[in-house]
């Protein structure tokens, strides 16, 4: 069965620090990849997605992610985080109609 792994469970950063959250998936076929964010008290919303083409995808709020097929990875990055980026971040892989979510990474940004 397909699975998604997020190795960073809790990350604490100071404002302006750079961010990289790891995501690995286990599926050898065609897969679409997503990063979702859940701000405190809000519902899950899409940050960015990859399905083909340029492996470096840009999303909202200055986030980007790089798809590295050889490493089965789709890491999320942001060069300079803000206090408002404090949230839970979920990586998800999609094949057909099925979605597989990672366990999430809790990011706390200290002003």
């Amino acid at each position, binding site marked *: 069965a397909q699975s998604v792994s997020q190795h960073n469970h809790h990350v604490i950063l100071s404002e302006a620090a750079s961010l990289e959250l790891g995501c690995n998936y286990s599926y050898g076929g065609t897969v679409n990849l*997503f990063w979702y964010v859940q701000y405190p008290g809000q519902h*899950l*919303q899409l940050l960015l997605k990859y*399905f083909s083409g340029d492996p470096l995808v840009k999303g909202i709020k200055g986030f980007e992610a790089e798809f590295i097929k050889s490493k089965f990875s789709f890491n999320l990055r942001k060069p300079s985080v803000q206090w408002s980026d404090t949230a839970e971040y979920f990586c998800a892989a999609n094949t*057909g109609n*099925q979605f597989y979510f990672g*366990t*999430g990474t809790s990011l706390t940004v200290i002003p």
Partner: protein
Amino acid sequence: EAGVAQSPRYKIIEKRQSVAFWCNPISGHATLYWYQQILGQGPKLLIQFQNNGVVDDSQLPKDRFSAERLKGVDSTLKIQPAKLEDSAVYLCASRRQGLGPYEQYFGPGTRLTVT
């Protein structure tokens, strides 16, 4: 475009009681998902509908959980009887039909507390 609607937003019940959650997906979205999200974990799929048919319910505890989507639009998820470990947020998501890279759209969730 209206988002995915869920109700109630919060529910507190005692163990062994029953509870029902309602979801109205985005108009035109054929695929509907129910997830259970326990604090500190990622969403876990309970059941997936394509129109009014069940695509995947392999992780639904069928002895106590049931779900339906009779007219292929809104859906209800029921728990009867509830257990303490059912305390979680129940998320509904919808998605366009097809194999394209269509993302899921999530509702605000229903936070269930079983005491």
